[in-house]
């Protein structure tokens, strides 16, 4: 691999922090500064998070009674489709890469900016445009196909605004590709002197693997949705058996993208956790090389397992067997990571600041999500459990329990760096605990519902499932409160929070060596890296000083 790194340290024209470098709207909307773009993205995805969350709240409200609190099934179907589309493409996939990644990657490798800053800004505009198209399709009536868009329902039968939504997703895909491309090239080409591959923090490796997936999988989705739109507009196509096509081809193409996309959501989370656990255990990370190569392995193997979404869809027996064993293979690196995080805590000096609480919550919830993944990877068990609430609970444990916890952990961890302010610590800890409890109350009953056979995407259900549904809805109110809490205290901290020092956590990593908030040029001089990552002093030294 090319290890071209920036050769000559240069003196930057020292300006003020990036936040005070221009106050006009124009200085924000036309910025090419990766840090400002990250902030723009943070605002955008927050809006989408609460749009998707509102849809989820309405869904849980509907399911309180067996016949459905919302009178019409049509409305419910549009709600869960909107929840899926908004959460997957406009929150989960972009969340960590475009906000924390955008902000931290150049800082972490000691660069001034990403390799292609203009492309970065274009990607934000594409994202906003895609979001507006998605919201448009929502307000003119929405879609009622589920976020998976299975044909021929989508191509020939649905009455929703499928084409507009598909266009929105294609545009959001271009934005993803631009971000992924930027990260890969940046990590290859713009590392500071001395920042060799094995000196890179795990967060960078994770984002590298994430970007590989974004860049290699997203174009396939673009073509798939293009074919779908073509089929829907002209009533000719390749997915509808009535027209001679094969509906399973759509599923193959869709999951070729959408399964790796699951890892786009979770891999950056792994990266965030791998920063936080060592920082708050005051100890170097356990098995660094294993963790980074597990990230890369997940990035590649995640492309070989998509068929496990189709075990009962009518694919061939042989392909089901192959995809099942490969699905188990992709679980191995994830398991290794969990053990390594625990190994990192061993003999550490563990502090329980808010980011660490979120991170510990992540490990617990992700482990549960991962383990229930074993159930649905086992072919015969999948036959019973797939398409039920078991699957819903499983992927919410990974996506929401895992990924959203990791996002919040990272947001709290780097908040002082991004804003230059500290959030109120006690509120942060309370938020982490409330979210953990609320989450389990919401989604654990759904495992049982799924085993008992309650199908997903049902507007109404047999009365015997009511008790567990009410439990789940009750938990959802706690979870909603848990998510509103950070919105409140973090906004508060923007104005009244304590000023943050350059390195409030005493963490390693180049991003902590510059001021909080950083300068427009990131560093006064290009830093030179001389030590391995997570170079916390060994316990015997720390103990000596205590």
């Amino acid at each position, binding site marked *: 691999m090319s290890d071209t790194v920036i050769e000559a340290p240069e003196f930057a024209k020292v300006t003020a922090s990036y936040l005070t470098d221009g106050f006009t709207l124009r200085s924000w909307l036309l910025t090419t500064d990766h840090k400002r773009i990250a902030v723009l993205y943070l605002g955008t995805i927050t809006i989408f998070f609460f749009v998707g969350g509102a849809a989820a709240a309405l869904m849980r409200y509907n399911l309180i009674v067996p016949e459905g609190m919302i009178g019409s*099934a049509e409305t419910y179907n549009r709600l869960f489709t909107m929840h899926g589309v908004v959460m997957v493409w406009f929150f989960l996939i972009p969340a960590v890469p475009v906000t924390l990644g955008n902000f931290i990657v150049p800082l972490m490798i000691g660069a001034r900016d990403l390799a292609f800053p203009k492309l970065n800004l274009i990607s934000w505009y594409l994202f906003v445009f895609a979001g507006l198209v998605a919201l448009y399709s929502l307000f003119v009536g929405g879609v009622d*196909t589920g976020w998976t868009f*299975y044909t021929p*329902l989508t191509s*020939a*039968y*649905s009455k929703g605004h499928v084409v507009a939504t598909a266009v929105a997703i294609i545009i959001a895909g271009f934005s993803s590709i631009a971000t992924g491309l930027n990260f890969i090239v940046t990590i290859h080409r713009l590392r500071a002197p001395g920042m060799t591959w094995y000196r890179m923090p795990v967060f960078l490796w994770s984002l590298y693997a994430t970007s590989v997936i974004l860049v290699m999988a997203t174009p396939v989705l673009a073509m798939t949705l293009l074919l779908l739109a073509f089929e829907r507009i002209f009533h000719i196509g390749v997915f509808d*058996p*009535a027209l001679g096509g094969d*509906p399973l081809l759509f599923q193959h193409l869709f999951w070729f993208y959408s399964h790796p996309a699951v890892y786009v959501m979770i891999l950056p989370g792994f990266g965030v956790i791998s920063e936080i656990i060592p920082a708050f255990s005051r*100890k170097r990370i*356990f*098995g660094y090389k*294993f963790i980074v190569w597990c990230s890369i392995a997940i990035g590649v193997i995640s492309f070989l397992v998509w068929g496990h979404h189709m075990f*009962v*869809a*009518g694919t061939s*027996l042989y392909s*089901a*067997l192959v995809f*099942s*064993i490969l699905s*188990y293979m992709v679980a*191995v690196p994830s398991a*290794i990571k969990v*053990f390594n995080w*625990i*190994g990192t*805590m*061993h003999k550490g*000096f*563990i*502090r329980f600041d808010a980011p660490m609480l979120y991170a510990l919550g992540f490990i*617990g919830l992700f*482990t549960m999500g991962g*383990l*229930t993944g*074993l*159930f649905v990877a*086992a*072919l*015969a*068990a*999948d*036959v*019973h*459990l797939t*398409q039920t609430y078991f699957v819903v609970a499983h992927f919410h444990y990974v996506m929401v329990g895992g990924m959203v916890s990791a996002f919040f952990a990272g947001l709290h961890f780097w908040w002082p760096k991004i804003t230059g302010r500290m959030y109120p610590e006690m509120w942060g800890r309370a938020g982490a605990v409330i979210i953990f409890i609320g989450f389990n109350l919401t989604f654990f009953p759904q495992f*049982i519902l799924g085993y008992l*056979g309650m*199908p*997903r*995407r*049902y*507007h*109404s*259900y047999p009365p015997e499932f*009511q008790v567990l549904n009410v439990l789940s809805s009750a938990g959802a109110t706690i979870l909603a409160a848990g998510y509103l809490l950070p919105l409140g205290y973090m906004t508060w901290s923007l104005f009244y929070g304590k000023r943050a020092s350059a390195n409030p956590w005493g963490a390693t990593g180049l991003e902590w060596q510059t001021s909080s908030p950083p300068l427009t040029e990131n560093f006064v001089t290009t830093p030179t890296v001389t030590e391995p990552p997570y170079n916390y002093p*060994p316990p015997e030294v720390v*103990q000596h000083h205590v």
Partner: protein
Amino acid sequence: MRFWLPQATTSAAEVDYLILALLLTSCAILALVFGLILLYMIKYRAGSDIDRGVLADKTWRLEAAWTVATLLIFFGLFVWGADLYVRLFQPPPDALKIYVVGKQWMWKIEHQGGQREINALHLPVGRPIQLVMTSEDVIHDFSVPAFRIKHDVLPGRYETLWFEVNEPGTYHLFCTQFCGTGHSDMFGEVVAMPDPEYQNWLEQNGASETLAQAGQTLFMRYGCSGCHGGNGAGGSQSGSTVRAPALAGLYGSPVTLIDGSIVTADDLYIRDCILLPERRRVASYPPLMPSFAGQISEEDLLKIIAYIKSLTPEKQS
């Protein structure tokens, strides 16, 4: 409210054992993970002055140990799940066939004797049942949780599902593949009853004609007999000018296609011959068969296939 699910088929218990094994494995791993986290949270909290000792430098032994351990466990689970899955989808040859047609938003069931029901399926316990399923519009999914079985029902294809019920009772039947507005209304019940009661039910709901008899009428009406002969005897024997293959004795026999491959004429093959004659053409006959795609409903198709099947004498096994 109940927190258990009846095991109504012979394979349900087997699936439950697998799920139980998965549950126990998960609980063990979960206990390990949560236990270690809690232990370290207390033991190595920053304020604790317990002696941490010296860090081990080499970690690869531990890494290799837990990698190999997870691999072995996962491989065992895979083999277990795969073995059962293969058996779940291999119908025994003597299964009783019942036909299922899904459409937005109902299940239509056709019995061999011509009995029809909607959103309900009556069947006998104690003998293997094979469902032959297709859809008129979008993808549906036939799922009976108490049987631990489900499969997608695709338009344009016959998918099959089999099970043997050993516990009489009434069970939920769900569509579990999202199929449009009325998806959650597309459920019904499966009534499993002892064989005598089932025979009784068949008689009470007896249709005027069996599936095959209805198929014979359709065979005439759609003009099939014009080329294939009155009783499917074949074109040349009935005095017709068209040389079309004989259909008597066709079902279950090997057929040579123009590309030289040999297939067994089963339900799906006959269906494709009627709807997509160009897809897999039989050898040594001119390509004169027109496509009936879009002209015959799925239910009529099942009847015609039942008729063609009835032209083959049952083999004694």
